[in-house]
């Protein structure tokens, strides 16, 4: 099963939720903002959202800016 994260194809070995998947990624800081298939998800929806083949995630973060 493959999903697309920030434009890159990512292979998933087993069914998982957004929360579980995020927890397995070392590169992702704790407080991020997620668009799931074009819709913004609030954090309480991450746990209940199962990832399926072809799903698209966009993950954003606040960084320094003027």
């Amino acid at each position, binding site marked *: 099963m493959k999903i697309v994260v920030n434009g890159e194809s990512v292979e998933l070995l087993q069914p998982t939720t957004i929360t579980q998947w995020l927890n397995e990624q070392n*590169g992702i800081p704790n407080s991020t903002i997620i668009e799931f298939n074009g819709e913004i998800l609030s954090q309480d929806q991450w746990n209940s959202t199962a990832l399926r083949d072809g799903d698209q995630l966009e993950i*954003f973060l*606040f960084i320094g800016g003027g």
Partner: protein
Amino acid sequence: MALNPLAQPDTLVLSETPLRSRLFVGTGKFSSNDIVPNVIKESGSQVVTMALRRVDWKNPQENILNYLPEETILLPNTSGARNAEEAIRIAHLARTAGCGNWVKIEVIQDQRYLMPDNYETVKATEQLVKEGFTVLPYMSPDLGTARRLADAGAAAVMPLGAPIGSNRGLKTKELIRILIDEIPLPIIVDAGIGRPSEAAEAMEMGAAAVLVNTAIATAENPVAMARAFRLAVESGRLAYLAGPGARQLRAEASSPLTGFLRS
């Protein structure tokens, strides 16, 4: 007689929020996020800007929010947006993240001078005000655009003094002066201010606030420069309230013109 500015608290009210500090600071370009808390402390700023970006997998960045004091009013910008739709998308993402409902609209296509697109900025402002955001649009100083932003319900108008990050000062001074004169909203000078004296100059002419990032972040000692800007903004504001004297070409003696020994 005018009220005594020394006896009154001087508050800038934006969207019903009273602010003591008229210096907004940006969090970009600092050599390390570790100094950001001290910069904000020394600046006295209550309103701080940040940007939203895709997480970079290979080089995970830190969340800038972890470095901001809890009481800070967050002003996420829509940098990276090339049109109104993208700016609106960023504003929605920022609000979802629990950043409150303030947003600095920044729509830019020009990559050399980073000049804002006033037309798209007005469109984004109209939409986001309808959705309940407190909208602070960054714009090229132009009276017609400023009027449209005011009509759209912007909380303030933020004209540039010079191109972003250029540290060149108040190059658009005469255009900003017109906005201050004509627009019944706070005018916040954003971008280009490179020295505390330029921040003071903007405040002396009646700007409601200034937003400074590069000038502080690229100083040799950003924490000390943050304090310098705080003092300059307070000084310029007080001078504005005190009412500067008239300018004239010829001298007018400050001491009595009578001779020292004989008249």
